[in-house]
């Protein structure tokens, strides 16, 4: 039988697939019918997994840079050099950092975290492309103790009311988009709130096309309306939550006039959302939570709205951040953050920290470390050595800072422009070449089993990290990823019931999985919380960027439908590459999306150049006429390397601060 069941490794949905393995190569992919989430569906990316896995641009041998040129080396030599060099730094807390990958398995992520902390004594470890999901997890963890999706993707059809905030799920996580679409067809009411007319907006019962940058005000307005009309779930709030009064008071500063003028929506629209949300027996909210997720304050309003509506803690309910990368959730579960241990426990938790140092037989610094990007941006950080795992080319943007480093290590499967900056390159096996678990966005831990052999001599990452640790005189004795999971389970309460022999059939186990809940936990229940559910603290500040006479347009900056994570993986496939590059072929230097009416007013046509001018700078870019944006709003896709312009980098801080809802007031001039 040459078809082997597995887990799709692209986005955070965690769909089941089945790979056709012939003669040691992956020659095809098919959908897995019995998977509880994907139920026999895959998206355009998933249907072409085999094209990626056949890619021949793999790193096939360790390499060491000597006199500016790479020379092939053995694993032993490369690993020894890494262990020796990293061991030489006297102040590892400021001199060494590790950049982990949200695509690594839980086992690989955990061992990298252990390597950084227990062997090289630094807490400077962070995930690439992290910010958005961390914001979501912070809010959910503080409020409920559960640092993950409160609902479950299996239960989408059980939600009578579904609110989708922002990005187009039908493109970013298509199978989740599909489940929402199916729920709508089965009678759930789906409302999408976003400034662009996306496919999920078209498939919704209602699309509230608010003005860019006003999601937070919208959410606060719904909460305010809920309370004003006495529709909040008073019994639930009283019995199970704390912090209601503070939150209710913070809404006072929001006037009805502000609500209409900032969001551009009628009060009746907002009241309808509040009423529908309150009267539905069950409700879920979805928002993307990846590279450009929402800021923490906006997530707090989402969460608080659902708490006061009594729509968490029950089946068919939940606040559901959606991850864009296969193991972003697992990355946080494994403590791949400067201030976290596994299971989202802070490093400042003395007893947790002690359990790790006891189990590891080695201590690590008490103080949280710093994130890698933060250190690279800070010229006085003192960073000297950097270890980067797996492909992500966004780090190339930090090329100047990286060139100045003393020692750089790259561990990954595919050839990658970043590897050029490394002093030592160590190839690792691809994900189908060894066992590993991946945690998808609904806390679903799934085992992906080995299906093919790696190229001769190429090691899986867990072996590489173990090798480095042992060269640095640590005694690690793992003989398989299952051993690593056993250690994770021992040290992580939410994973304590998980072990490799628990994985049979398809679908995995949703954490928390422990003695009390041996089958795992589909959704957050009120009695799961150790204490009362806390409403999230909010700023109460509703300042938004407003257009002015000089800059009358609001420019949205965000993900483009036609791209997925800078196409790093997609460009190794055939069909998705063709589809995803179509936009690039049409607009090689990026584009600004404007409405047909605006194009007429400006007297420009599709692909004609315009100047975009803001307070901070200007850029020349092609016009893309689109029915997805309203008049006087414009959209530019960002963080797509091929499309990024200096213009957006000049606004970098503004964008990072505002997250997905980032907006810039601009004017557009015909060239």
């Amino acid at each position: 039988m040459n078809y082997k069941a597995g887990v799709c490794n692209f986005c955070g949905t965690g769909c089941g697939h089945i790979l056709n393995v012939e003669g040691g190569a992956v020659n095809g992919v098919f959908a897995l019918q019995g998977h509880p989430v994907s139920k026999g569906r895959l998206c355009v990316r998933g249907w072409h997994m085999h094209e990626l896995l056949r890619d021949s641009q793999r790193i096939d041998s360790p390499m060491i840079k000597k006199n500016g040129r790479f020379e092939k080396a053995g694993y032993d030599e490369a690993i020894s050099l890494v262990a020796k060099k990293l061991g030489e730094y006297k102040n590892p807390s400021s001199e060494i950092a590790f950049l982990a990958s949200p695509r690594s398995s839980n086992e690989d992520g955990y061992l990298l975290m252990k390597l950084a902390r227990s062997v090289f004594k630094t807490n400077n470890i962070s995930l690439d492309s992290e910010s958005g999901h961390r914001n979501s997890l912070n809010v959910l963890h503080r409020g409920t103790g559960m640092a993950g999706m409160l609902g479950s993707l299996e239960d989408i059809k059980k939600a009578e009311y579904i609110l989708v905030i922002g990005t187009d799920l039908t493109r970013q996580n298509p199978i989740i988009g599909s489940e929402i679409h199916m729920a709508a067809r089965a009678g759930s009411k789906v409302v999408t709130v976003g400034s662009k007319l996306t496919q999920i907006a078209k498939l919704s019962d209602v699309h509230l096309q608010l003005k860019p940058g006003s999601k937070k005000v919208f959410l606060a307005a719904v909460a305010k309306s809920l309370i004003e009309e006495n529709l909040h779930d008073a019994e639930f709030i009283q019995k199970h939550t704390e912090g209601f009064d503070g939150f209710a008071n913070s809404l006072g500063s929001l006037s009805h006039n502000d609500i209409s003028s900032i969001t551009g929506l009628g009060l009746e629209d907002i009241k309808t959302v509040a009423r529908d949300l309150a009267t539905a027996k069950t409700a879920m909210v979805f928002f993307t939570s990846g590279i450009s997720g929402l800021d923490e304050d906006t997530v707090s309003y989402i969460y608080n709205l659902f708490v006061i509506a009594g729509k968490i803690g029950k089946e068919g309910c939940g606040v559901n951040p959606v991850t864009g990368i296969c193991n972003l959730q697992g990355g946080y579960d494994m403590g791949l953050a400067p201030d976290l241990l596994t299971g989202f426990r802070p490093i400042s938790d003395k007893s947790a920290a002690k359990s790790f140092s006891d189990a590891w037989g080695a201590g690590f610094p008490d103080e949280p470390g710093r994130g890698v990007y933060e250190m690279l941006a800070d010229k006085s950080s003192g960073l000297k050595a950097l270890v980067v795992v797996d492909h992500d080319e966004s780090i190339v943007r930090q090329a100047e800072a990286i060139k100045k480093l003393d020692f750089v290590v790259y561990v990954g499967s595919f050839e990658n422009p970043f590897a050029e900056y490394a002093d030592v390159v160590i190839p690792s096996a691809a994900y189908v070449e060894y066992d590993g678990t991946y945690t998808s966005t609904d806390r679903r831990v799934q085992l992906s089993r080995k299906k093919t052999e790696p190229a001769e001599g190429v090691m899986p990452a867990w072996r590489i990290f173990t090798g480095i640790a042992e060269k640095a005189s640590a005694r690690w004795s793992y003989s398989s990823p299952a051993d690593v999971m056993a250690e994770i389970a021992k040290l992580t309460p939410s994973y304590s019931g998980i072990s490799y022999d628990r994985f049979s059939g398809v679908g995995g186990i949703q954490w928390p999985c422990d003695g009390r809940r041996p089958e795992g936990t589909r959704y957050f229940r009120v009695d799961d919380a150790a204490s009362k559910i806390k409403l999230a603290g909010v700023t109460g500040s509703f300042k938004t960027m407003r257009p002015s006479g000089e800059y009358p347009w609001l420019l949205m900056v965000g993900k483009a439908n036609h791209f997925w994570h800078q196409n790093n993986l997609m460009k190794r496939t055939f069909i998705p590459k063709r589809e995803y590059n179509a936009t690039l072929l049409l607009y090689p230097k990026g584009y600004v999306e404007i409405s047909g009416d605006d194009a007429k007013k400006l007297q420009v046509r599709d692909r004609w150049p315009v100047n975009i001018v803001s307070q901070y700078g200007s850029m020349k870019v092609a016009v893309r006429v689109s029915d997805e944006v309203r008049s006087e709003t414009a959209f530019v896709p960002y963080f797509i390397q091929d499309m990024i312009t200096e213009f957006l980098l000049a606004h970098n801080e503004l964008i990072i601060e505002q997250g997905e809802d980032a907006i810039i007031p601009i004017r557009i001039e015909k060239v």
Partner: protein
Amino acid sequence: MFLIKKSEVLKLAEELSKTYAVYGPVVEKESNQTFFVRPDSIGDIDLDAPIPSQPPKHTVFPQIERIFHYSYDKGAKRAEIIADFKPEPKALFGLRSCDLNGVQCLDRFFIGQEFTDDVYLEHRKKTFIVTNTCVKPFKQCFCVCTDSGPSAREGYDLNMTDLGDEYLVEAGSDRGKALAEKMGLKKAGSGHLEAKKAVVDGSISRFESIATDNKAWISRVMNRITTGFIKGEIWEYIGNQCFECGACTFVCPSCSCFNIEDVNRKDSSTDRLRSWDSCSFEGYTRMAGDHNPRKPVEDRRNKRFFCKLSYSQSKKYLRPGCVGCGRCQWVCPGDIGLPNVVTYIRREITSR
């Protein structure tokens, strides 16, 4: 016409395995999902298994396949193209009637028209086909609406029908007959043919109660699609629900669209690969100069159903392009598998 005891039916496959790589329906254990593959042992073939989740078209038209490779010798200024495709002879054992109809559509596309596709021909001319009548439909089936089942009518070497304790084995070709004779199968009589008819009629009558997922009364819709009298809004409604994943194409027994990709290898030679493609992709119809006759998604959806259900396309296939297997409805994230589309169009017709 011959008979073989039910307990001995896999002996046919055993015999075929001496000459052919035998493919058949096998239930994968971990997922409990049926695949049409080479079994680890002939005993794994399960003739009662539900129709395979993926159509058997991959046996003659693989998901990805090298059709030739080439290299260029700079020094000698010599280019060399080596078309070394040599598919092994295959026996498709226990093929369902719908899937045989799918293969016949592929035949018409790849080798039945003006041009002959050498690679496909090579696969196909070495194929021995043993079909298996569906004695009852499965949930998603609607082959009775597309004239493609539940029992195969032509195009097989042998056609088997489960009569209870034994299979009726009909020969559809000389080599089929030769195989049955070589195996020393008992001759069947006209009574057995009547028994088969009863089985087939019984199967058809059970569509009403078993095949409840999909109904696709397509004749009227064929008329509409052929004449183009379908409102733009209907296509738009359908197009809005298309996730552009390509799944419907990949699981369709009769879909033949493919893409060609040249992949450079580390030894500086180049592989020319053929892989499945889909008309649902924008890039599929994009031309030089960025012209695209089917740019909006609804125009692409429209094309697919034109291909499956129009009379002009049926003239090419000598049958409707849809074979009634119901797989597209299984895999579609937008819930616009062919049966649903037929329903939307019919709804429009009847609402006038």
